């Protein structure tokens, strides 16, 4: 456990990608099987322990520590694992610390009732860094700035290979990956025959600004709607069917209803959406299905998911990625002509006449589930990553309002010492009513300015929340950008914003000149 804890700890403090790669590679090189394989599983998010959840850890800590002190500490630290690791009272003469493999095998084998006692004894035996690593490992949220892709890149480096080569064999492997390391170290053949339905790195786009358009020729580009779901890759390969997130995470288990729609032997790039009355529903509906390991019958019935296809990457034995978008699109249309069915269809192209014409279409999209347009070069091959100059996203302009900062709360994670979660309001008569919360959109420098303002203008403290001065004369006006507005019974103001964020700080504007609730209500109708 000690070496694994040291690895996580140094990764957490290493800001550079290259540095992280070196650390992981060195760990994988120096650590024997099977410990290194379990570590790789942890770094790639492959571990899950049914009975070891955050609530269990919290319960153990609260049984040992005064609950008020625990709550104050958690509020300050902003991370459960770290709070527990630090606050856990030392117990001299506790048992020896366990090795990673032993911890994992014990957790997998233990009966639910035994787990609290086991975890407690491990926490006693470890130092604060070890406790932190153990809790991170058990609860599955490492948050140390290492993606699965980065960990695989480091593993691939053991055998001077590219991450894509590991990616290809990955779906057929299982922790602790002894056959993978044997192959990478040249001691065995490539793990074969099991790499069905692999993930292929996704091609991404750059945001485009209106002024960039003047440099581009509209005839070079295909345009299609950017649907407001999540980007996925759906692969079916000799009977094996898998659904991947755009980072390559296998999310098949939560979407059996999508898997059954897939045509044989094809790799589709598309948007995962929830369907309602034959049309894509709002992102809100899709959210009910996200971040789940499994899915219930009720969820399947109430929030049926499907795919709107953008691209075709692979068909039969043929890799289509080197072809141009024009050629791939023709192949996709041909496939979808026979494969389309309820909840699986083709994302239509939008004719490109001129940028101005496209601009007006973008401002009036035919569906509320559209968040803008995608522009793709007709002659673009499908390349991994964010390739410059090939694909662009052209999002709808957000709505803007000027609102007044009312309450602030300390953030979590890397912003835990700053007041970074803001509740803001608009005027209803002579009173401000809260209309939303935002916790991003600002620059680091703006965050410091707001934090300073909050500390200097605190009127009241309610636990972790500070009430900030907000009179007609004194207060901070925030320009808030948001994507849409819905009626809401849960909010006092009666409206709820979609994707609100801080667009600008209006130090120049007195609070009395901020927007009124009537302005928002007018947007609803």
């Amino acid at each position: 456990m000690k070496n694994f804890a040291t690895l996580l700890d140094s990764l957490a403090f290493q800001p550079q990608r290259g540095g992280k790669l070196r650390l992981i590679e060195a760990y994988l090189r120096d650590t024997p099987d099977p410990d290194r394989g379990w570590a790789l599983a942890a770094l790639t998010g492959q571990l899950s322990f049914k009975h070891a959840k955050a609530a269990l850890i919290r319960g153990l800590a609260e049984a040992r520590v005064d609950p008020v002190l625990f709550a104050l500490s958690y509020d300050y630290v902003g991370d459960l694992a770290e709070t527990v690791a630090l606050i856990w009272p030392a117990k001299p003469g506790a048992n020896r610390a366990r090795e990673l493999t032993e911890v994992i095998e014990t957790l997998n084998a233990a009966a639910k009732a035994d787990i609290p006692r086991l975890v407690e004894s491990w926490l006693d035996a470890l130092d604060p860094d070890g406790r932190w690593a153990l809790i991170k490992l058990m609860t599955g949220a490492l948050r140390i700035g290492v993606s699965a892709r980065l960990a695989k890149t480091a593993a691939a480096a053991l055998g001077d290979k590219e991450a894509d080569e590991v990616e290809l064999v990955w779906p057929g492997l299982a922790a602790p990956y002894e056959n993978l390391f044997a192959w990478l170290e040249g001691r065995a053949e490539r793990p074969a025959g099991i790499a069905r339905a692999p993930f292929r790195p996704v091609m991404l786009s750059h945001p485009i600004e209106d002024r960039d358009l003047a440099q581009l020729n509209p005839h070079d580009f295909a345009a299609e709607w950017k649907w407001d779901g999540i980007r996925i890759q759906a692969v079916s390969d000799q009977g094996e069917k898998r659904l991947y997130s755009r980072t390559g995470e296998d999310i098949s288990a939560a979407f059996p209803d999508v898997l059954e729609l897939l045509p044989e032997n094809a790799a589709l790039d598309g948007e995962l959406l929830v369907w309602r009355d034959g049309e894509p529903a709002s992102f809100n509906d899709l959210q009910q299905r996200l971040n789940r390991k499994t899915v219930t019958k009720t969820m399947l019935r109430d929030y049926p998911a499907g795919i709107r296809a953008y691209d075709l990457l692979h068909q039969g034995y043929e890799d289509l990625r080197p072809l141009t978008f024009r050629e791939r699109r023709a192949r996709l249309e041909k496939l979808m002509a026979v494969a389309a069915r309820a909840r699986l269809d083709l994302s239509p192209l939008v004719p490109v006449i001129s940028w101005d014409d496209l601009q007006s279409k973008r401002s009036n999209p035919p569906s509320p589930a559209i968040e803008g347009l995608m522009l793709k070069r007709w002659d673009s091959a499908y390349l991994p990553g964010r390739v410059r100059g090939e694909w662009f996203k052209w999002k709808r302009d957000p709505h803007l309002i000027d609102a007044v900062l009312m309450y602030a709360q300390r953030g979590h994670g890397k912003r835990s010492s700053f007041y970074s979660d803001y509740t803001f309001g608009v005027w209803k008569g002579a009173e401000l009513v809260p209309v939303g919360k935002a916790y991003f959109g600002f620059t680091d420098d703006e965050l410091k300015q707001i934090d300073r303002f909050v500390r200097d203008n605190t009127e009241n403290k309610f636990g972790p929340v500070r009430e900030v001065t907000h009179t007609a004369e004194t207060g901070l006006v925030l320009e808030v950008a948001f994507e849409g507005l819905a009626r809401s019974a849960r909010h006092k103001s009666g409206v709820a914003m979609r994707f609100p964020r801080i667009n600008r700080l209006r130090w120049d504007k007195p609070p009395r000149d901020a927007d009124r609730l009537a302005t928002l209500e007018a947007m609803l109708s």
Partner: protein
Amino acid sequence: MRAEQLLRTTPAGLYCPAGDFYVDPVRPVARAVITHGHSDHARAGHGAVLATAETLAIMESRYGQNFTGAEQPAAYGADTNVNGVTVRLAPAGHVLGSAQAVIEKGGARAVVSGDYKRRRDPTCAPFEVVPCDVFISEATFGLPVFRHPPTEDEIAKLLRSLKTFPERCHLVGAYSLGKAQRVIAHLREAGYHEPIYLHGAMQKLCDLYERLGVRLGDLRLATPLMKIPLTREVFKGAIVLAPPSALSDDRWSRALGDVVACFASGWMRVRARARQRLVELPLIISDHADWDELTQTVREVAPKHLWVTHGAEEALVHWSNTQGIAATALNLVGYDEEGEGEPPAAPEPAS
């Protein structure tokens, strides 16, 4: 006289009405008792300042000779009569010259801790427990997540990193009063006798510490060596000490080459804090009491009333009440609750 009447809070800071003086006032006043030289406690412009000779020397080094109308040096343990109130300074173990202010009248005693710590510090006198009726304690690290590890372990971590990365300069962010000299003294104790390089902002106070009898070994100014490519070579595998603000000022640190950014501070206990500052090697070394030291001190001082100031007051107040010691939070303003009591140093041009 009741001990609770000895002191009260005012906008200028803690005030003793019977003796007509303030302790660590944040605004200019006629008569001040200053616990230690950090700039949020020791400000210029008071009519008269009662403090240890070391604290007065530190203030003079920072603010110049005319920082106050009248200097009143007091040795640890010596009584001074201030308008009928007895004031005595007791060591606080925070930085060189730091003191607690012991205030007595008519059998009642209040102690203002100033900033303090309980663990060993080779550069200053250790904290002295003074039993009292009212104890006014700081609470910078007043949460049970703050348990500073043994200082020797953190120094060993730095020395180990020097061995692992012998080609990289280790740039250690440390407050220029107290922390810097303490880190140097601990390094010397651990057998590190190489030259240690200083950012210009550190030099005056290191010289002063030496003059006051604290041996720091071979110290050299970094900036002149940073200007010439040939002499920049000395920074490979060397330790450079700079104020925390210089850590993020890469216009200054650029000439040091590939640096391991280290920061010696109690805040480094919390990962998110270290990551925010892009620290690669956090060194958990603090001149403030950690949670265990705070609770140990309250137990040993055993006051009838505990007043808690700057920092995380709530937790210590809660804990103290559960121990049967009546506690209140004093909302004193003007003290730095996030830093360890130092303003950012002025940036120093590299070349």
